[in-house]
């Protein structure tokens, strides 16, 4: 019994850390711009396909595939910001970028559908079938890699935000853009940096998800709904809350699968979302907004 609990905890952390990678990008962009990039899901999908393509092209070099997905994500982030968010922001509308990214998302999905077809791809990495046994527990090397890559990315992001000048400037821009400008910070540069980081994470998560999930042009879309729920549960724009909520949702999913019914996963997750909205509308770790006059 306890080994089942432990085994499912590992599975939950694997799924959860993937969700965290996807959700962090959403929350970073929201934190800085108070905007949502609906094409985020498709960067995940494109990352998965890029990793698939490069891995196969280089006869099984999955690590090169991961790097390619990361690079493609970063490039797409730059492109989406420069092509959509910057020009539409100059027009001064809040709603336009949101709608434009929905358009980009639909366009990308259909382009992938036309190019790659609706039949799921079997993305097997050299690590998918290597199993590590720890007593009664077992996990694939792919799962270890997922936890490792996610853990390292999250730690790097955290360190960047906490300890570097640029990371602190990024947090300043997200708290008060105009005042950040007064500090000599160019907010435009930091918004661009946010898009690049967020989308690189999305591409990366695609590379990690691809071998685990059903790889179709809609792979990202199936994850993004959960990622949105996680962003809300964690508190919009709150990095720590997003990490916690992502792992929590992963654990809930794996325990629901084990002890209840896999079909109930979405119901349980979204019940948690509703509960959060009712009880703690600002998210799990609400930032304390103390105001002094």
């Amino acid at each position, binding site marked *: 019994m306890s080994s089942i609990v432990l085994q499912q905890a590992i599975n939950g952390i694997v799924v959860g850390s993937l969700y965290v990678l996807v959700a962090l990008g959403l929350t970073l962009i929201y934190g800085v711009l108070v905007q949502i990039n609906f094409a985020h899901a498709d960067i995940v999908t494109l990352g998965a396909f890029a990793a698939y393509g490069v891995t196969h092209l280089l006869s099984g070099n999955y690590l090169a595939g991961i790097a390619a997905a990361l690079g493609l994500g970063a490039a797409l982030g730059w492109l989406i910001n420069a092509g959509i968010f910057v020009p539409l922001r100059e027009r001064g509308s809040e709603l336009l970028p949101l709608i434009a990214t929905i358009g980009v998302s639909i366009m990308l999905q259909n382009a992938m559908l036309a190019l790659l077809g609706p039949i799921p791809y079997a993305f097997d990495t050299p690590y998918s079938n290597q199993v590590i046994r720890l007593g009664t527990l077992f996990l694939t090397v792919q799962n270890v890699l997922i936890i490792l890559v996610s853990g390292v990315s999250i730690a790097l992001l955290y360190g960047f935000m906490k300890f570097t000048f640029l990371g602190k400037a990024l947090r300043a821009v997200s708290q008060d853009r105009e005042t950040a*400008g*007064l*500090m000599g910070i160019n907010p435009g540069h930091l918004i661009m940096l946010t898009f690049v980081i967020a989308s690189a994470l999305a591409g990366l998560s695609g590379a990690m998800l691809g071998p685990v999930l059903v790889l179709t042009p809609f792979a990202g879309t199936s994850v993004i709904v959960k990622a949105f729920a996680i962003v809300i549960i964690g508190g919009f724009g709150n990095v720590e809350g997003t990490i916690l909520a992502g792992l929590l949702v992963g654990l809930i999913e794996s325990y629901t699968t084990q002890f209840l019914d896999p079909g109930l996963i979405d119901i349980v997750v979204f019940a948690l979302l509703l509960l959060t909205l009712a009880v703690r509308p600002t998210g799990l770790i609400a930032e304390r907004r103390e105001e002094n006059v």
Partner: protein
Amino acid sequence: MTSLLQTQALELAYGQVPACRDISINVNDGEIVTLIGANGAGKTTILRAIAGALPPRSGTIRFAGKDITALPSHERTNLGIALVPEGRRVFPFLTVRENLELGGFKFRKEHARVRDRMQAMFGMFPRLRDRAAQNAGTLSGGEQQMLALARAMMSEPRLLCLDEPSLGLAPLVVRDIFQTITAINARGTAVLLVEQNARYALQVARRGYVLQTGSIATSGPCSELRSDLRVQEAYLGRGAASAGAAAP
């Protein structure tokens, strides 16, 4: 004395709503100049234009002999203009230390300089040293004002613009803040002070401009402005007595 900041016939507006017109002010190297006026007279608007947060509709702004009218605010900071905005606007979820570091953002490649500068600020405001690891949002109003002031001074500005530094603070704290402003100026930084508390402002500054509904009503040395009847009536609260005495 050479002119450090010069605005010429500035016309400012928020969208279609005009806010200020024909604003020509001058701040010389090393002096304290004040802008006083009632609520809504346009004081904050002018400071925002000088800091680059609000592009003017027409007119020019020159700083240290250079036309900066079209420069975005982050580049003005690099030239030596610092603004302590109204309501202090510290970054509430960054620590006091991080707020100060960002004030020195333009020296980010010179770590030693930022560190030294921060030590100097801690020397000037010992309270901030005690609270260095605390989130700025948890500070009291007076402490936040000190932090906003120290943060602006981190960039070693040639011109320090202050927007209502006394707003909402206890009288003792206000006195401290004004003493600090005088001390900062004594070390060579020019100060442009926007204040509702005209009594303090006219004591601290050398020259002043009086704003009325978006344009400059009068200007001159503060000693003259203090004895100006209109200024007294409107801003120094001696209105009733002098108006009574002047009535036939």
